[in-house]
Each structure stands twice: as structure tokens, then as C-alpha cells.
């Protein structure tokens, strides 16, 4: 193959960029971008977020890996994003491949291509990127000279639908494992051995799943009979990777030349959540809860402000009010940065008046709305999903919000929860109206309530993974009811396309055979499936037909508790026993309290007992582990999965 030079790519870009929308998406060169010498780098990594620049640049995961990799003297990492349709057309016509923003090298020139897959509707974009980058789409067609294609992110917890395209998945947290992957790649490259050697080497790293080393077999009815190793030395199951202590936060963010979706410094104040909402994929897979110290957060805010000049910081976590020292953090931020015209966003607050006090300290302008997420509108439903908040509590909190000066409340709900009735849906409208009524008392006609209603998708590794999806007709009907009843001044309703939700469900719950469906859909032009204006449902129905599969099989059956899931060999370390029990509890309306109050033995501690012992105290929110059977050094010095070493 004749390789194209970065000079040739740059020259072609000169001619095509003035003709496309928002050319600054495609130039690179921003403040804090890292450029390293291509020739002297031993490993070159392309970090790919398979959506446009505007979204990808706001992704914290990508920024973390970029920082970690570029700190290594012999490694370089560069960014690649999806091209908007006009730019894709231009570069296909000019016959140049997709390139990295930093040095304009063709994607196929990199040693490793790392995809960030936070959600499933990016899958066709990932295929499109490989195609534009002139990398063989199918893992089995890649040879020694081709890049290693890896992927990670929350969607990778069910890697099977993408198994045909990705050489290796990272299950879990990437901060440490990414460097181990680079090391393995360097060793392999120096040894001049064949590609399967590399894959085998990777499979022995804790948290890495190499799909080609496993085989799935099916029953007559299409369900899985077993997933087995083809390679004796591959791990079974593949245990998720975690970092025992959150590393220091990134402070040197790239500052785009143009507006992106979030123009702010993101700081993860804690990882994981102790609440145990049964629908919540993130809450199950990001355990255990680990917090950063107030001091560390304050210092990193100060440093990143100097590095970026941003006017806003986002304190990120799954449940900000649960951060142990949240009051102290908020107080310190408002004192230390009060003269800086700094906006602080604090998403994911609990429904309690304490949240209003927190925001009261941060936002003096009351500019934005105040967001609460009851997720369901009746107490029965909220108990079922384990988000036990009383309706009175929702109203009381709303009252406080309006009383403190906000005039707009956003309420997030889901429809399609298990056993949901039309009454539960109508209750959404009633609750919104009741909240608005509270608002009118303080804000008159300026009060407004926006309901954001999305569709529940039973996700892998959650207590609801057995549940069937509501079918499109019923969802459409429920949305219609909401549209009808949420009319009038001060009320607004946002909802998701039921078809896109269905696609998300297929892709998140599918097995290995879904790879064929994804490939067929991409061939027929599917891309940007998360975008309403690009998404084409008919293509996907046709793709199922071409692959000889029935889409109802994936989404419209309640799965028996003894069925083998496509993701059965991926161990999120929250045990199936716990998930099953929680599922059965939900049917009885039984709830669980915050697991900081009482440990429910979800499975994290037995698996990671040694890590917990090595990191005692407040670093984790799990109880401390007292007994000591194995020297901790043994586990910390090896990149083996804990379960495999300790035999738990």
C-alpha cells in the first residue's frame, strides 16, 4: 500500500476546509494540544471518540487517556473524531484517509487505535471511522502491519455485539491498564512475532477481553448454550479492571477554538454510587465508591483554571450530594474562587432540601433550571426501581427550590419500567403539574416545569437485565398520553425517539450475532444513530433481516433467571446472585438502603478484598476488610485479575 504523507493530507485540507461547516473541528492545533516527534515515539496511539469533535472534546475519559499516554516519554497519543457528513464527503472525494488532528497522520499509520465507547449508538460510527481510516473492519482480516484496535467505556461491558471489529476490549477503568497494553504492544513489536501472540499477551492483562479467544454456542431457540475459551490460557471470566485509588485529576485540558457541548473543566469528585437504583448501569459497574479529597479537588480546580482559562467547572459524579464532604467542598469553592466569575455546575443532586442549600452556595444568578430526577412518578414505581423518595419529598424540595429564587425546574423520568401501567405514566403529568403549582405560589406565571422523559432500557449487569423492553407501540402510546396531558403554560415535555431507544436496547443486550447486523446496517448507510436527523430505523430492520435474525428476540422476551447472557463471561464483580435477589426483591416492592449504611455483599469486597486492605479508610466507601490472608504486595505487583490470584 502506498502511504500518504501528513504533508499531502495537510495540503488537501487547505483546499477542502474552507468549504465545510465548522472547519475548526478538523484542524487541531488548539491550546494544550500535545505534539510529539512521530519518528522517535515507540508506540503511537490514536484515541478515537466516534462522534463529532463538539461532543468528543467534552469527554473526560478521552482527556484522561490523552494525558496519561502523552506523559510517557516513548508514547504519543493523538485525537481522531467522526467527520460530519459534509467533511466525510469532501475527504472521500479528495481520496485522503481519516487523519489525526495533531500531526495529520493517516489512521492506519498508528500502532494502536483506541475507541471510547460510552454508549451503544456510536457503533456504526466506529465502523465508519475504521473505513475512512483505511483499516480493515473485521478483526480477523487484520495482519501484523495493521493497527491493534481496542475499545473501552461503559458500553464495552457487553462487548459481544462489537466482537467482530475490535481486537481487544478493556472492561472497566482505563487509567492503569492502558499503559500495560502499550507495554505488551512494545514487547510484541520488538519480538517480531505474529499477531495472535500479541492478542494472547493482551488477554493475560487484568481487565482485557480478547473476543477471538472465545467461542459462543447457541441452543435451537437462539439462546446461548455456552461461551467457552478457545485458548486455554485466556481468563474465564474476564474480571473488570479498577484503580484502587483515583489518580490525580487531569488539569491540562485542550481548549477548543470553538464552542463544544460542555465548555468547562470536568472534575470527577467521586466514582461509583452507593444508592443501588436498579435500572442504573453506571451505578452497578462503577463500584466501589471512591472519593477524591477536598484538597485535591480544590488544587486541581486552581491549576486547571490557570491552564485553560475556562469560566466553568463541572463537579462530576453519579450522585454529587453523596460525596462525603460536599458541604465543605462547595463552601471552599465559593470562597476561594469568588472573584473569578466562575460558574460551578453540580449535576446529579438528590431530591432533598439539602441539595437546594448546596446550589444556593454556588449559583447566585439562578440562571439555569434546577434539575431533579425522580425517574418515576408514583411511590410504588420508585420502590420498584429502588429510588425510594416520597412524593411529598419531591414537592417539598421543589418548594424550597422556588422559594430560593429559581423559576424553572427540570424533572427527569423514565417510562417503560417493569410492570408500569398507564396510571403510572399519567402520574408523571400529575406530578409535574403539582410541582408547577408550588412554583406559582412563589414565582407566579414565571414558574415553569420541564419534564424530560426517556425510555427505560434493561441494561446488562443490572438487576433488571432479565426484563423485557416495552414495545414501540406501547411506548409511542405512553408518549402520546404525556403530550396530551402535559400541555399548557409553564409546562414543557421532552422525549426520546422510541426507535432510537429500541436500537440502543438491541445493541446493549445483543450477542455476537449482532456484529453482522451492525455491519449490514453500516453498509446500508447507518451512522450517527444517536442523531434524530441521521437515524434510519428501516435500515436497521432490514439489517436484521439480512442477518437472518429476529429483533424481538433481543428485546421483547423476559429472560428466565437461568438463561446464559451474552455477557455472562464478563465479570462486573457485582455477583449474579446479588442481582437476581435484587430483581426478585423489586417484584415485591422491597427496597435497599444506601449501602454505606449496610453492606449487601454485592460482590465487590470479596473480589477486591486485597485492594481494599491495601487502601484502608475513606478512600473507599465499602466497609474495611480486616482479615488478612495473602500479602498485599503479591497482588499489587502483578497485573492479574484479583479473583484469579486469590481463587475467590
Amino acid at each position: 500500500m502506498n502511504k500518504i504523507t501528513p504533508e499531502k493530507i495537510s495540503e488537501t485540507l487547505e483546499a477542502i476546509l474552507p468549504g465545510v461547516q465548522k472547519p475548526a473541528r478538523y484542524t487541531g492545533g488548539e491550546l494544550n494540544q500535545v505534539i510529539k516527534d512521530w519518528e522517535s515515539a515507540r508506540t503511537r496511539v490514536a484515541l478515537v471518540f466516534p462522534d463529532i469533535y463538539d461532543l468528543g472534546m467534552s469527554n473526560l475519559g478521552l482527556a484522561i487517556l490523552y494525558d496519561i499516554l502523552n506523559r510517557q516519554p516513548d508514547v504519543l497519543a493523538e485525537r481522531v473524531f467522526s467527520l460530519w457528513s459534509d467533511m466525510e464527503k469532501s475527504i472521500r472525494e479528495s481520496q485522503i484517509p481519516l487523519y489525526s488532528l495533531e500531526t495529520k497522520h493517516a489512521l492506519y499509520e498508528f500502532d494502536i487505535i483506541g475507541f471510547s465507547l460510552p454508549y451503544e449508538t456510536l457503533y456504526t460510527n466506529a465502523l465508519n471511522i475504521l473505513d475512512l481510516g483505511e483499516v480493515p473492519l473485521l478483526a480477523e482480516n487484520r495482519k501484523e502491519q495493521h493497527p491493534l484496535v481496542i475499545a473501552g467505556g461503559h458500553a464495552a461491558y457487553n462487548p459481544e455485539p462489537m466482537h467482530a471489529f475490535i481486537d481487544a476490549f478493556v472492561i472497566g477503568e482505563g487509567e492503569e491498564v492502558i499503559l500495560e497494553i502499550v507495554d505488551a504492544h512494545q514487547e510484541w513489536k520488538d519480538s517480531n512475532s505474529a499477531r495472535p501472540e500479541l492478542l494472547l499477551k493482551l488477554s493475560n492483562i487484568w481487565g482485557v477481553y480478547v473476543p477471538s479467544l472465545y467461542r459462543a454456542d447457541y441452543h435451537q431457540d437462539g439462546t446461548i448454550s455456552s461461551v467457552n475459551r478457545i485458548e486455554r490460557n485466556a481468563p474465564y471470566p474476564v474480571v473488570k479492571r479498577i484503580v484502587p485509588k483515583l489518580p490525580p485529576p487531569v488539569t491540562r485540558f485542550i481548549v477548543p477554538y470553538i464552542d463544544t457541548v460542555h465548555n468547562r473543566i470536568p472534575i470527577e469528585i467521586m466514582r461509583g454510587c452507593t444508592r443501588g437504583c436498579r435500572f442504573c448501569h453506571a451505578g452497578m459497574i462503577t463500584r466501589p465508591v471512591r472519593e477524591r479529597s477536598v484538597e485535591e479537588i480544590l488544587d486541581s480546580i486552581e491549576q486547571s483554571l490557570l491552564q485553560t482559562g475556562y469560566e466553568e467547572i463541572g463537579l462530576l459524579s453519579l450522585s454529587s450530594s453523596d460525596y462525603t464532604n460536599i458541604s465543605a467542598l462547595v463552601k471552599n469553592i465559593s470562597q476561594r474562587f469568588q472573584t473569578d466569575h466562575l460558574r460551578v455546575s453540580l449535576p446529579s443532586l438528590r431530591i432533598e432540601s439539602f441539595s437546594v442549600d448546596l446550589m444556593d452556595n454556588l449559583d447566585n444568578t439562578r440562571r439555569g433550571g434546577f434539575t431533579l430526577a425522580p425517574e418515576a412518578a408514583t411511590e410504588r414505581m420508585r420502590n420498584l426501581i429502588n429510588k425510594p423518595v416520597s412524593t411529598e419529598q419531591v414537592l417539598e424540595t421543589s418548594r424550597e427550590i422556588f422559594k430560593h429564587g429559581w423559576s424553572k425546574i427540570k424533572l427527569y423520568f423514565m417510562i417503560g419500567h417493569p410492570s408500569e401501567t398507564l396510571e403510572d405514566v399519567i402520574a408523571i403529568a400529575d406530578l409535574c403539574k403539582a410541582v408547577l403549582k408550588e412554583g406559582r405560589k412563589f414565582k407566579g406565571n414565571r414558574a415553569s416545569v420541564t419534564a424530560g422523559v426517556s425510555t427505560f432500557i434493561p441494561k446488562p449487569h443490572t438487576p433488571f437485565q432479565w426484563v423485557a423492553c416495552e414495545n414501540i407501540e406501547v411506548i409511542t402510546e405512553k408518549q402520546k398520553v404525556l403530550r396530551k396531558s402535559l400541555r399548557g403554560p409553564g409546562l414543557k415535555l421532552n422525549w426520546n425517539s422510541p426507535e432510537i431507544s429500541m436500537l440502543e436496547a438491541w445493541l446493549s443486550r445483543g450477542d455476537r450475532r449482532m456484529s453482522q447486523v451492525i455491519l449490514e446496517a453500516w453498509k446500508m448507510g447507518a451512522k450517527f444513530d444517536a442523531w434524530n436527523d441521521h437515524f434510519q430505523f428501516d435500515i436497521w430492520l432490514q439489517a436484521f433481516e439480512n442477518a437472518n435474525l429476529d429483533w424481538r428476540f433481543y428485546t421483547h422476551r423476559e429472560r428466565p433467571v437461568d438463561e446464559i447472557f451474552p455477557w455472562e463471561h464478563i465479570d462486573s464483580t457485582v455477583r449474579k446472585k446479588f442481582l437476581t435477589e435484587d430483581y426478585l426483591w423489586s417484584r415485591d416492592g422491597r427496597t435497599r438502603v444506601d449501602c454505606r449504611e449496610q453492606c449487601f455483599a454485592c460482590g465487590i469486597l470479596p473480589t477486591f478484598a486485597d485492594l481494599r486492605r491495601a487502601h484502608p479508610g475513606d478512600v473507599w466507601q465499602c466497609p474495611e476488610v480486616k482479615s488478612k490472608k495473602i500479602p498485599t504486595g503479591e497482588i499489587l505487583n502483578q497485573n492479574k485479575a484479583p479473583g484469579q490470584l486469590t481463587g475467590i
Partner: protein
Amino acid sequence: MIENSKPMRIRIVFSKLDQMRFTGHLDLLKTWERSFRRADLPVTYSQGYNPRPRINIGATLPLGFTGESELMDIWLDTRCPPAGVLESLIPSLPPGIVVKSIQEVETDSPSLQRLISGSDYIVTLPDFVNELPLRLMDLLREKEIWRERRGKSYDLRPLILDLSGIRSNDNSTQQIKMRLLTREGATGRPDEVLSSLNIEPHRTRIHRLRLIIN
């Protein structure tokens, strides 16, 4: 840095180059705000609901054009010697912005929009154009040049002050120098002039050399 608590208005002459040419007006304002924040300089913010930094960029440079000597005024809450401002600012600038000079101006002096009357552009052509000087003269001889932009028709001719062709010694590059009117509501665009000459603007390089101040 010596400071006292009187507000100060400074005028910055800067170049906007390379990748920065694809940054539009609003994003350029943000870029300046962030540069001053990184430099820890006390930019004046407006009061109230949605505080904004007090920055005034002379004449918006259209997306895709580069500029040699663009003009901007910015207000600071406290007085800082211009040399000190320059020193703090330089390491804080993003790639593609170069500060050429900084001077203090009276806080109540007229706005840049009122001062600026014209722009000099230099356009580099990708392909050789036969009899370029002749074609430029022909265009200048026109009494009216009616064009349409954003659904409105207007006469481009009074917005063109001067045109001339330049050819490098070895004949390898050909350029057009343009002096165009730059007033609020009466601004000549070099790409419109190029289109009138039947030259496709996309592939040319348009560089604003200077803004003319009355």
C-alpha cells in the same frame, strides 16, 4: 505589577493566523477572555444576570481569513502598565494569536467601530489568471456591481476603494491587493470581489494586512 483601582482601557494589535482563521467572532471573544483569565489579568465584567467581559473587537474578520494587524479594545478593573500586560499575556495566548503591540487608550475615546474606515487585503491566487491587471481595471471601471448576499441585493462597487495585481518576480505567485470600505453597515468583502472577477474564493488565501483608522 503596580496597580490601582481605576479602570483601564487598552488597545491590542494582534495577528490571527493559521488554524485560528476558522474561529468565528464569538469564539474569538471567548478565546480572548480565556487568554486574559489564564494570564490572571483583571478583565472588567458587566454587571447582572449574565456577566460578560468587556471586550470590543474592531471589525469582524470573516471565517477562513487570516489577519496581520487586527484591533481590539479590552477593559481592565485595575491599572496595569501595558508592558506588564504584554508580558503576562504572551505565554497565555493560544497558537494562532500573536500580539504585536499594546497601548493604553482613554476610556472615553470613540469605539473602534467608529474609528475604522477601511481594510487592506492581500489575496493569494492558487491558479494563474490571465490579464489580471486588465480585469481588475475593468471591474474598477464599472459604475455599479450588483450582487446578492443572504437574500439581499446590494451594490458592491462603492465598497471597493482600490484594486491592484501583484506578481512575484519568478511569476510563481499572483496576488490581488484590495482596499475595501469597512464601516458599520457598509463593509466590502474580498470574497465578493473575487466572485465578481469569476475567481472561486474557497481556494484562495485571504489575508487582511491592516485596518485603516481615521
